[in-house]
């Protein structure tokens, strides 16, 4: 019990420190990408703590409560993640837990930002939920194929199955089409550039974040770091075979996240209707092809 709780807080601390540092490193890499020097690697920490040290305005209790619900929901989700074999609640890392718990945090943020009353926040939330409908369907088809093929939906068991004989049993090698689809969905989840429609700072003034300042903005930035950690860790566990060592985990995580960020900086932004049309044309077709291959031909099992 005590060790479980300590493990949970350890995972939380690791998630915050690692993802926030990586965001700083990422800003540095993007800076070099654009022929700039870029900020210090710990710039993201400074931004978060600065935001927490400012005063914040309130727009009523729904606004404040939603921020706490978002941060709390996301932190609870992180505690269920199995990271490098450590897990706060062993045996309870079913994939569907994450699907449901992630929604708590996201809905908290949606409630809070709509509670601010700003029309741009409403547009942003509407776009975020529409985009979620877009990427969830192909993503879930691929994941259900994996669960059908391996006969388990536990994340740690899926990781163990993939670790059986090195790189050849990773889902990346066995289901390459599904991996591509899941990566495109991951770009949508992270809000990276072709699917950045719901943030869009130049168009709808950063969408759901439009009315946040000071402490609430700091808490939402922490929430964003945790959400990114969950999404990238899910991808690493489901397709890159998880990791048995901390170094392996960090290396895989780094490659997945930095690649997403580089793609983001090379592309322009879709409109929301283009996002949905794209997701319902290309990735969903590929996802169905992958699922048919797994279910009827038994390839990649």
């Amino acid at each position: 019990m005590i060790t479980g709780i300590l493990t949970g807080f350890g995972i939380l601390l690791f998630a915050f420190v690692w993802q926030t540092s990586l965001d700083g490193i990422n800003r540095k890499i993007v800076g070099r990408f654009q022929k700039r020097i870029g900020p210090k690697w710990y710039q993201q920490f400074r931004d978060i703590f600065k935001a927490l040290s400012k005063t914040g305005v309130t727009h009523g209790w729904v606004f404040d409560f939603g921020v706490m619900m978002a941060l709390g929901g996301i932190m609870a989700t992180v505690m269920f993640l199995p990271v490098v074999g450590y897990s706060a609640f062993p045996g309870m890392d079913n994939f569907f837990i994450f699907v449901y718990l992630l929604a708590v945090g996201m809905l908290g943020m949606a409630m809070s930002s709509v509670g601010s009353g700003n029309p741009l926040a409403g547009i942003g939330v509407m776009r975020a939920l529409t985009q979620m409908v877009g990427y969830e369907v192909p993503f879930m088809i691929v994941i259900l194929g994996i669960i059908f093929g391996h006969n388990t939906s536990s994340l740690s068991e899926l990781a163990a199955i993939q670790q059986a004989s090195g790189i050849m049993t990773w889902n990346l090698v066995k289901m390459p089409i599904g991996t591509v689809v899941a990566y495109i969905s991951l770009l949508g989840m992270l809000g990276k550039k072709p699917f950045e429609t719901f943030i869009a700072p130049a168009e709808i003034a950063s969408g759901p974040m439009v009315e946040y300042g000071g402490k609430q903005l700091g808490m939402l930035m922490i929430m964003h770091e945790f959400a990114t950690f969950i999404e990238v860790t899910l991808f690493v566990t489901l397709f890159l075979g998880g990791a048995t060592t901390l170094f392996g985990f960090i290396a895989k995580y780094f490659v997945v996240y930095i690649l997403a960020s580089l793609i983001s900086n090379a592309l322009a932004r879709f409109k929301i209707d283009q996002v949905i049309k794209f997701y319902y044309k290309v990735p969903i077709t590929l996802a169905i092809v992958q699922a048919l291959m797994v279910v009827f031909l038994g390839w990649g099992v």
Partner: protein
Amino acid sequence: MDNTVEKQENIRKGWDGISRFFRANSIWMLMYCTGCCAIELPQAMTSRYDMERLGMGPMATPRQADVLLITGYLSLKTLRRIIYAYEQMSTPKYLVAFGPCTLNGGIYYDSHAVINRLDQYLPIDVYIAGCMPKPEAVMNGFNDLIGMIKRKEANGWKKYEQNKDWYRKNQIQALGELRIKDEFHE
């Protein structure tokens, strides 16, 4: 009794120092690009001078921003929006004014539609000289602002709180009517 008060004071001072370190090294800007000085900001932001290495970056809304940049002359209509934006920012907030137009009206000093001295209406922390200021001058001004935040000298927002009546009187004199409100909750 005195001991605990002293302790609390020390804690407050320590926390103040820490938060000033973070504030000085992470400045988010709200750019109000009214006049010609705004054209000097892209050079300061992109690869030639790279503002982000000082921890500065553009932000989309007044709520998120720390510093309001006023780039050039201000007509009366613009002044009204500037005041609304400044009142929305969360404290501590800073204000940087570009060029002579904000200082004494610049080349528009005799226009009926343009205000001459911005510091009658809002507290300015840093003026940046030049018409228009070169990117070097812009970066120098931002360095000055960072130094002032570190040395606890960027107190424009405190001055505004203390002398609010005086500022409000000037604003109403220029604009006639001023409605500061939360327009989404009426």
